[in-house]
């Protein structure tokens, strides 16, 4: 991948080429059913998402509700799913977990008498995940003079399995961050001292890392992965400012499942210079029983999973994330602010005692950047 980017770089500089945003006219494809299923041996990891595809220019998620979703194992035991939020279906039994060595098949019944079923997939033995670690690195970003500082995460693993192992990794991170200021005072027609200035100061945010990671031991002499690169977290954001946690779910999957995700990965990062591979329609493992020609997107992924979570504290590397500056000069106009904007949060300089406003409310309230005020249950300080 990087190779292709680099070729592009050389070309760009050599020939003063340019890249600009461009939306071609793509005729909208009919809404296609998307079935995205995951079943692992880990509790709470199994879920099925039903949706419709959308046109490229819109690109929104169109959840599909009121589907009947269940799975059947090789012993003909049926496990029903319930819709927990629009389009999201989870096992009725909250403690459901797949059994290693069992085979599973996904069934989805949708209004209009359409039944969809997946191929039968075996849940493979999970492989050990030896370590996940971060390394301070700088990297070059196109159209940016200064290189970016940050932490590149890697993993090491091995397997005792004698045949080729196909890996898939899904990442999610949680980080603690702070709003720029304490709320020392509020303005509601008058100044009020805030007794707990850091009420909205500290937040924890959890999100999926939207990147697909795949690899196979097929190309290796020894099935050992040493420093396999995962995500890179730059200091341009607030992720690394206080404490950061990365959860790596390592899935062991079958070859067809790997192929699906690996091609998807390649097509999603496809830079489409001329040495890129010709993209094509990827076929999943789910079909419409009533109409074999019907295109069904998505995949029923059955995987043996190993999870590993690591924590890192703020690294001693240069940070470059945006910080709010207190605005002292606008203070004189504060009395003209209409009551609809109240309460106005204010911060006080520790040294000078000067009171200032913030440019945005998120300078005071970290929740506005997507976090929650309480740490998740797993959080270790």
């Amino acid at each position: 991948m990087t190779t292709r980017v680099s070729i592009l770089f050389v070309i760009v500089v050599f020939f003063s080429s340019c890249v600009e945003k461009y939306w071609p006219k793509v005729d909208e494809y009919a809404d296609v059913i998307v079935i995205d299923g995951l079943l692992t041996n880990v509790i709470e990891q199994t879920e099925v998402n039903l949706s419709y595809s959308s046109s490229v220019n819109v690109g929104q998620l169109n959840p599909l509700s009121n589907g009947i979703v269940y799975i059947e194992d090789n012993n003909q035991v049926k496990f029903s799913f319930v819709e927990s939020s629009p389009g999201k279906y989870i096992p009725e039994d909250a403690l459901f977990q797949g059994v290693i060595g069992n085979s599973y098949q996904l069934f989805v019944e949708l209004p209009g008498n359409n039944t969809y079923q997946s191929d039968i997939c075996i849940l493979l033995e999970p492989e050990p995940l030896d370590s996940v670690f971060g390394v301070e690195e700088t990297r070059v970003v196109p159209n940016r003079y200064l290189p970016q500082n940050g932490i590149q995460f890697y993993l090491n693993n091995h397997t005792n399995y004698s045949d080729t192992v196909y890996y898939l990794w899904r990442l999610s991170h949680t980080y603690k961050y702070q709003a720029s200021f304490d709320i020392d005072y509020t303005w509601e027609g008058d100044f009020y001292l805030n007794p707990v200035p850091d009420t909205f100061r500290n937040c924890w945010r959890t999100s999926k890392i939207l990147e697909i990671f795949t690899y196979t031991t097929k190309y290796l002499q020894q099935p050992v992965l040493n420093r396999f690169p995962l995500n890179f977290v730059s200091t341009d954001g607030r992720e690394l400012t206080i404490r950061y946690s990365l959860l790596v779910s390592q899935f062991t999957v079958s070859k067809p499942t790997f192929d699906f995700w690996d091609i998807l990965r390649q097509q999603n990062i496809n830079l489409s210079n001329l040495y890129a591979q010709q993209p094509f329609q990827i076929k999943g493992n789910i079909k419409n029983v009533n109409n074999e020609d019907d295109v069904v997107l998505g995949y029923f992924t059955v995987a043996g999973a190993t999870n590993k979570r690591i924590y890192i504290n703020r690294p001693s590397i240069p940070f470059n994330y945006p910080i709010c500056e207190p605005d002292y000069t606008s203070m004189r106009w504060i009395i003209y602010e209409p009551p609809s904007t109240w309460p106005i949060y204010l911060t006080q300089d520790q040294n000078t005692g000067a009171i200032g406003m913030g440019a945005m409310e998120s300078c005071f309230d970290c929740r506005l950047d997507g976090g929650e005020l309480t740490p998740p249950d797993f959080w270790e300080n």
Partner: protein
Amino acid sequence: MKNRNLSILIFLLLSQFISVNIFGQASQKFVPLTLNNVTWTEFKHETAISLNARYYIQTGTLPYFRVKVKSDSLTVEDVLTESLEKVGYKIVSDNNGSFFITKGISLKTQLPIGFFAMQTSVSEISETQKDQKVRDGKLVTSSVYVAKTIVIGDVKLNPQKRKCLLTGYVTGSGDAGPIIGGTIYIDELETGTATDENGYYQLKLLPGKYTLVFKSLESIERNVKINLLSDGKLDMSLDQNLYVLQEVEIRSAQEHNVRSTQMGFNKLSAKTINEIPVVLGEKDVIKIALLLPGVTSVGEGASGFNVRGSPADQNMFFVENTPVYNTSHLFGFFSAFNPDVIDNFTLYKGSIPAKFGGRLSSIFDISTKTGSMDKFSARGGISPITARVMAEGPIVKKKISYIAGIRSTYSDWVLRMVKDPEIRNSKAYFGDAVLGFDANINESNKLKLFGYYSEDRIKLSNSTSYQFKNQGASVNWSHGFRNKHDLNVSFVFSDYEFEEENSELTFAAYKQNYRLLHNQLNVDLNLQPFENHTINTGVSGVLYRLDRGWHKPLNDQSGVLPIDFGKEKALESAVYVSDSWKISPLITLLGGLRYNLYTYLGPQSVYTYMPNSPMSPTTITDTLNFGNNQPIKTYGGLDYRFSVNFLLNPNMSIKAAYNRLHQYIFMLTNTIALSPSDKWKLADYNIKPMVGDQFSLGYYLNFGKDFEGSVEAYYKKAHNLVEYKDGADLVTSKIVEWDVLQGDLDAYGIEFMIKKPFGRFNGWVNYSYAHSSVLVNNTTTGENINFGQRYPSNFEHPHTFNLVTNFKASRRLIFSGNLIFSSGRPITYPAAIYYLDGEKVLHYSKRNEYRIPNYFRIDLAVKLEGNLVSKKLAHGVFIFSVYNLTGRKNAYSVYFKSENGIVNAYKMSIFGTQIFSITYDFKLGNYDD
């Protein structure tokens, strides 16, 4: 033009002796005093009307002057002599009112020495010419000599019809001295003689009618018909050929347009190549080929090109018979041929001669210059990207010469100046060299040794590096016998290799290599047994040795599994014969057959598979082992060549052609354009060779003074085209048949071209309409690509328009420009977005269902020749060029990228702005030595 005009004058003068004197007035009449002190232009105009005067001026223009008419009893000749004599002009008039103004030499009012001066005979002018004279009533200003028979001697002096002695002097026209070593060839007898150091020759011939061909290196050839009766003398003056050889060559191409049986044929000389503006001032034969009809590429900077809807691996490149497998530098941005060394190139895309085979679509044949046999010379140039130098000269005067050219980039320092560390740490080097020796062993034997080398070393940041190397050599011996037939024997060697190192993943850092060796022997014989037959026959054998290479760990930290892709060997031999038969003056027929015998050789182990099922690890039925050089599989294929030319009139013809060819080596690729690390693969036990058929029909017209027009339509089909299956694993795909499918390619199109090959204003314009599509649907095994539906080829551009112009403002100033339009290439776009695990993913359309935006570009160049001082050490040329004058951001590709969960679409342009460049070329000696 000087001498051409002079010869016209001489010719005109001669004709005075026999023309009827009707219009003789101006010479005797006096010039009116009213014309005193007028300009020459006015004078010319006035006297043309009032005195019916005609002026023939040797140099075309006269210096500015005003006419002085000092009395009313002066003739035009008197007046002009008065004004022009002091500046070295001579004025001669005849009785027809024509005035001949010459500089330096005075025209004689009788037959000049060195023309048809015969001591004992008179000349006869053919009847047609006489008619023409009378009809026109004035001088015929044709530059073509009408054939006339010169009677030499007197039949009374030789009643026994014994052998007669014909002698004479051959001189250059004007003040040029005797022509030494000029030849006099008697067409009918196929013999001849040469002139001695005084320009003197003698011939002993039986009385009779002969056609004598006078020629020498520095002169224009002249044919003279004589009727020899007794001993006599014939002196001959030959016009000097001031023009460089290149223009003569273009003239020969002119005949091809209408008369030859060739279709889909383009030949361009070094001169043309040099005049067309190119990106960054880097002259490039391939970029110029892209301006010809039916030749396109996937995009700017894609390596290779596509001829009439065929993939790039269906083109063969030869430099002096040496095949070149990697034709480009820097991933396709520049072609790997030093422009200084190239003499001309020929592109066969329609009817491919029987002597060429092994590629379905086209043959790109580059001829290099022959080193000068007379004196040392050198040339070179500097462009923003490269520096190049070429030297040539004799080793043994008139016998053996050499030519050597080298070109190298200094682009590394450009990269180093960039602040961006990733680029600063990148390296891009390329270079190429050519070495040739020519030996004229004797009159009928020539030997040419040729060597070629090109190299690319590219390092991208610190993770990937490429090294490409192409070496080739050929030994060519040509033997002419009886001046009609010739035998050419060549032994050719070519070696293409590359190496790639990739350390993106430390634990999986790898290195892979590849090598292709090509050894070839050609024996080619051209025969002309009868006047109207030209037979070309020969044999050819190619031994291919491929090392598909290793994929192995780069260092100790790497745990990559070493894979040996193995070696391959095959012998492709062919025997061919073709005959061009001029059935009548109006119909020429060309028929050719070429039988190819391809043998895939051991050592090798091959799999056999269950019939009618996909070839995959699960359907293997047996493994066959073959020893060294043991034939594994033999494919025989008969190629056909057929073309016919109906000459409707001397300037108009209709041609039709049918070709069948076979191809046994192909490129394994599944990228949009050929990628730097794509590998060649031989047809083998399970992968069948490709077969291609092409029908073409054309209409050819020469019109106006210099225009050539043509319309060609074609339909072609290629079978067994090799395409990768969707999602094939390329890195470790050792058994190719598991990952490829074979399908059919269909292409058709029509090409319109108008060309003005010479003149002050020259160039061409063409438009092509073309389609090309691929179908991969194996109904027996149920395997297909794109759901078994036909899809457009990656390089299909339905409409292309190219305009190439050159304008010589003066001998020192040349303007040239290109205008290019083409439809955007097909592309597979994402048609929908859907979510998997929270991430947006793309659902692609059918293959190549959409197109990128159209392409449009204008280039301009100004060429400034150095001064024209006749004696100087070196001559320099500056070329200022601007590529993409309008700065249009032509799409190179349109791509979609998922960034932090958001899908963005981007259009990338390679040359998104005007690219200005200055190139300096120099050569030892003068302008066009």
